């Protein structure tokens, strides 16, 4: 079962032109800085925004399993009793309770994507599949890419690269553009902060660079974690050794906006505030890449 947790139209930072970005739920990594914490779990999750709750008890009355209780802190959900059926969100008048993760038939997703046809045509944009990790839903993704291909829609995939070489190539043969994350070169650090080794990610990128697809490399820049000269230097060396250069290295400065999302998920204890890179730091990183002959810029 593949779930979509968001669809973003007029996406102007997710690849060339104006795009529609489809966010697939589920990710094999668990980066400590993740700003889409609702994207990690593959299953449906319940989000609660306290500021929107008017205490009307619609959900309390609706829930057949008595999982919802109105407290001073808003609605408290007993996760043991909750079946994630979503009926509470259906009756919530303000949208304080929402379910993250919806199942869509392929045709329905295509209908949504096709609404953007003219804007995509005018701007040489297209569709971007993001996540989570879209390759986590390999079969579903391949189907969607094939459908988009039939419509001659420009396809882009935003990936962590953490997948098998076979799956990666299957996807690469069905799209025109990749947004490929490189988080940190030191494997120990990578394991520590993302939960997985980067060996597969790096070898996959080498493989991908030998195909036709265009590649942008994206680096989430976190102060004190991966902004050091050594890491940037190693990243640049790796990039320069690739079969072909990426179109651009996009530096995405870390931000703590996701705190609210962790609150909504009821997982605020999982939120670890990292340090935001200041402008001097961002500039230093850009010029380091440039000194290696690599084009880099702030933002997607």
């Amino acid at each position, binding site marked *: 079962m593949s779930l979509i947790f968001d669809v*973003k*139209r*007029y*996406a*102007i*930072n*997710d690849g060339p*032109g*104006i795009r*529609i*970005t489809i966010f697939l739920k589920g990710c094999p990594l668990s980066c400590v800085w993740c*700003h*889409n914490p609702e994207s990690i779990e593959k299953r449906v999750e319940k989000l609660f925004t306290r500021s929107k709750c*008017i205490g*009307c008890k*619609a959900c309390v009355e609706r829930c057949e399993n008595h999982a919802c209780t109105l407290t001073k802190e808003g609605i408290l959900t007993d996760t043991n009793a909750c079946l994630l059926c979503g009926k509470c969100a259906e009756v*919530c*008048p*303000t*949208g304080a309770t929402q379910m993250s993760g919806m199942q869509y038939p392929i045709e329905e997703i295509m209908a949504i994507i096709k*609404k*953007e046809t*003219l*804007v995509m045509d*005018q*701007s040489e*944009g297209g569709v971007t599949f*993001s996540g989570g990790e879209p390759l986590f839903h390999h079969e579903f993704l391949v189907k969607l890419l094939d459908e988009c291909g039939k419509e001659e829609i420009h396809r882009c995939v*935003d990936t962590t690269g953490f997948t098998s070489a076979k799956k990666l190539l299957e996807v690469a043969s069905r799209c025109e553009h990749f947004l490929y*994350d490189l988080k940190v070169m030191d494997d120990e650090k990578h394991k520590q902060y993302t939960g997985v080794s980067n060996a597969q990610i790096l070898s996959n990128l080498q493989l991908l660079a030998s195909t036709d697809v265009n590649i942008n490399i*994206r680096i*989430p820049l976190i102060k004190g974690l991966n902004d050091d000269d050594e890491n940037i230097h190693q990243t640049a060396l790796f990039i320069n050794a690739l079969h072909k250069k990426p179109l651009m290295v*996009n530096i*995405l*400065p*870390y*931000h703590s*906006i996701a705190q609210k999302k962790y609150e909504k998920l009821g997982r605020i204890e999982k939120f670890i505030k990292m340090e*935001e890179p200041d*402008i001097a730091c961002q500039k230093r990183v850009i010029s380091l890449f440039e000194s290696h002959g690599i084009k880099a810029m*702030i*933002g*997607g």
Partner: protein
Amino acid sequence: MQSIKEIIGKVETNTVAERAACEQGNFYEPINNNAIGPGMNERIQKLRKLSFEAIPSISIERALHQTAFYKENLGKHSTPVLRALTFLDHCEKKSLYMGENELIVGERGPKPKAIPTFPELTCHSVEDLEILNSREQQPYTISQEDIDIYAKEVIPYWKGRTQRERIFSHVPIEWKRAYEAGVFTEFMEQRAPGHTVLDGKIYKKGMLDFKKEIEAHLDSLDFMNDPEATDKAEQLKAMSISCDAVIVFANRHADLAEQKAQSEKNPQRKKELEKIAAVCRRVPAHAPRTFHEAIQMYWFVHLGTITELNGWDSMNPGHFDQHLAPFYEKEIKEGTLSREEAKELLSCVWIKFNNHTAPPKVGITAKESGTYNDFTNINIGGVKIDGSDGVSEVSYLMLNVTEELHLLQPGTSVHIAPKTPNKFLNAACKVIRQGHGYPSVFNPDTYIMEMVGMGKSITDAREGGCSGCIEVGAFGKEAFLLTGYLNVPKIIEITLNNGIDPLTGKVAGIKTGDPREFKSYEELYEAFLKQLHFVVDQKVKVSNYIDRMFAKYAPAPFLSVVIDDCIQKGKDYYDGGPRYNTNYIQCTGLGTVTDSLSTIKKHVFEDKTLSMDKLLTAVANNFEGEEKLRQTIINKTPFFGNDDDYADAIACKVYDDLVKAIDGKPNIKGEYFHLNMLSTTCHIYFGKVMGAMPNGRLAHKSISDGTSPSHGCDIKGPSAVIRSLTKLDHTRSGGTLLNQRFLPSLLKRDEDIIKLGQLIRSYFTLGGHHIQFNIVDTATLRAAQQAPEEYKDLLVRMAGYSDYFNDMNDDLQQEVIDRTENESF
């Protein structure tokens, strides 16, 4: 991983905003990076400062001249000739103003932002003048001495004789009821019908040439066979006199400039004054030969028309860049003009526009007033009469001047046809990014089709464009009169109350049945249509009546000279003289109406989760104690602007029915009414006179503007909005309006600018008429509310016009803040 836009937003506040148009022709060294418009030279900085800081005031001079002249001469001449003679009399006597540093000369009043009154149309009472002098928002100063003179000399004469009194003594009770309930407004009760835009003829002919044409037509009148010949003769005589009036006015400026030149010590200024004198001797009597003369020519014609009467939306130069380009190109080639000089002259006339604040209304309090803006709208770019690309160097200069001067007036719009180069579109988007509100963006393909659909020739349609907010017209050939705004949501409200205005309990419409008895959505919709047709018919009848009053009592001979085919027909601008004569009713609130109908259709009739009684009771009680219901409606109903076919189909049906109700209703000139969709600031007033609506909008809050979605209800981003909007067939209207608010972070990088341009091209390819962007962040707006002094030049674009944030009242300010912020992360 998603991108991180809010960081980009933060970065932006730390850097000095890029001066986009600099690349397109910024010639002067910046004084410092924080100065407004670093490209302005010293002269322009001084003139701008003077204009910017001038406090609007009322000048009673015109009223005194007018009154004295009427006392002496009423009954001695035909009405048109009397009107022309009063105009001549005023041009002969009025105080002139010629400021230091000016290159383009002439003011309507005795100094910048001194506004005359027009007592023959509407006469301010002492109380009106006192309120205008003391109100907090948009005051107009006037001395006690002047109020006393006004009370003694002006008011007693005009009592019972004004156009406004004549109108109100004749309107039927049904009209009065609807008007008082706020179902519509009536433009022509406050000011003369306006919306006048010029084509290129005044750059080819001088007033003496027009006089020759007039003489020829006078000579050819057939008194033997034409029963109207006498009337035509009087009209033509009046036109000829009015030509003399502007020549006299210009010559007086020439005299003054010569006088000043004689005593001027500074040799450079002396030369300038001599040049001004020479230019004023040449134009408007003769056709202009140079860039300088062409601009001064326009300016005298502009002043003439806004002094003769106070038509709505001032006067407009139309495709100003296209008119000036031949002069510019010739002089640049010959070496008699530099780009710097051209830019300076354009800046001078831009400041002149800004000096001309809108005339203050009568019988109106500060609460109902909205702006100093008099809505001149300069069209830049677009296509030429032959269909070719209209962009020239002058177009870029105008963008540059607009950006640097950052003034309330004139409004500018860019016109983006498929053949318009991306370079121009991107340059315009960079000016939009500055967040000054201007320019708004129009689609010539659509508006040309709109005009051709209304019967204009293709060339006349191409010469046309947009004026005021978004209204289309054939420039120089059409009287397209706006007759008033129609409060479509109020018609829903009245329908839901069986013809009664729930705010007053008074009758405002007709009986169409108690909605609690309705068995289907269709039954309710039918009732709405009955009310709509009733209201529109009332409005049309009275508008036609008023229209005729202007033809009869307040003709505009000077305006008639410059609009085809008034001279040929021997008829006044208000009497069917122009080649085309259109009356518009401006509808507003499509979003509010759609969302309200969607609520009823879905929850009451389809899902049956809500009874009509419960909904109407909640609405009547302004949703008090029904927040759960209100939130359910807001969050669980398909609303307009989200590319949702359920809601958009309702919008299309309503729009279609508005077209059916209005389009083709006869006006008094043998032509027709059409609709357009806009509201300027009227949606605020309309909201005030309304209770809550079924879409969850609370009582007295503003309704949606023009064809924009309800405020804050377009949550799927701009590409969804443009899809919703273009499900309507824009070509069947005389203009639609779409406001989109963007936070600066969406336009941080040059790629973002290009994407904004692509969004605009997408909207226009889909058939959109107009779009405008408000690029501003909420924090800035809140800060501006707290410390207005520090944000004096904060210009905000909304509802088809621009304003200074601090000159808007609290409600308008709140509205700007409430609009959806399209930040997509």
